């Protein structure tokens, strides 16, 4: 009889990927594991919604239904390592179903929702397909912890194409001079992983 108290998955001691543990814990009733899954994959789901050029309100609906689908299938996920692909496929399916339904929302509701969502246009034109999203996610997740931290920090500090190395270095507690070579090395590794995927 499993206790309903949260099973805390420690990504530092478990081998590499915490996602299978999170899926298992969530399926067993751990709400915090679920919340962590939502945090991890929300950007992926949202990006796939936007890649279909969905309006703010429609994207919000597809986003919710994608998560609800995962919830209703949690105990049926056979290979949690393939979760990014499963999520992207599900989201894409829901987006296409919505486009098929050609939903007509009342103009004022749409406008208000767009305001709430901060406008209809993404800051940059989305350019990745849903599959590429999933593959990039997977490949990124296979990089070393350090590479993931460095690249994530560099990306979050990007303004247009300028990255503040001293800022990122300070954040990571490393020398600014090492960032360039690390960046190059990590991206090279990422590229290798992508080549292996054939994408």
């Amino acid at each position, binding site marked *: 009889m499993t206790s309903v108290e949260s099973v805390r998955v420690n990504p530092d001691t478990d081998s590499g990927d915490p996602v299978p543990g999170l899926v298992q814990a*969530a399926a067993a*009733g751990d*709400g915090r594991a*679920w*919340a962590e899954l*939502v*945090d991890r994959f*929300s*950007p992926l*789901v*949202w*990006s796939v919604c*936007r890649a279909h050029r969905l309006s703010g309100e429609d994207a*919000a*609906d597809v*986003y*919710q*239904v994608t*998560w*609800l*689908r995962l*919830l*209703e299938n949690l105990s049926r996920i056979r290979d949690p390592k393939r979760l990014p692909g499963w999520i992207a496929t599900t989201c894409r399916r829901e987006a296409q*179903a*919505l486009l*098929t*339904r*050609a*939903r007509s*929302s*009342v103009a004022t*509701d749409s406008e208000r929702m767009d305001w*709430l*969502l*901060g406008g209809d246009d*993404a*800051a*940059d*034109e*989305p*350019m*990745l*397909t849903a599959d*590429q*999203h999933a*593959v*990039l996610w997977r490949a*990124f997740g296979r990089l070393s912890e350090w590479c993931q931290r460095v690249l994530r920090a*560099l*990306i*979050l500090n*990007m303004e247009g*194409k300028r990255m503040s190395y001293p800022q990122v270095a300070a954040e990571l507690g490393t020398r600014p001079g090492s960032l360039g070579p690390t*960046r*190059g090395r990590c*991206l090279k590794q*990422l*590229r290798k992983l*992508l080549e292996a995927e054939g*994408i």
Partner: protein
Amino acid sequence: MNKERRPGNGHDEPVARLSDLDDEQLLAALREALGASDPPPAWCVELAKESFALRTIDAELAALTEDSALDGTALTRSARLRADSTPRFAVFDADGLNVEIEMSPGPQAGSWQLVGQLTPPAVATVGIRRPPHDQTTVTADDLGRFLVDEVPAGPLSLAIEVEGRQPVVTEWITVG
């Protein structure tokens, strides 16, 4: 590879091969994939987290087997239904229980009326489920008919309890 297709230049074309991207392009692609350029709204994320309350443990899942809004099955159901019209017609199948619902726009903008039929006909409690938690319930009469006056547009699932059998929840659909 067409070198004109650089990320962030506002082109509509997706990238050809991720592994062909240079460092800057790859970082931009990562930025998009990681959601840094267009993050999901916080309220969306919170709602998804809270929706854990909608998890069911012992219920059987009734799969969506027909949906007039998706595949034109309306054409085989009733002369008055067109594939692109309301009411929308959907059917869910569980083992030994079939749920049919018809959705029409309600009197208020953004709300829908739902007419349902259980087969085999049976009295049942029908729970209306929407993020982030279960909502109202209605009762199906002894002919298995039920009515929900107002369902807001958005994700919907029904929880059906017929005495003497395992509870059933319908697969999530989006109303509206």
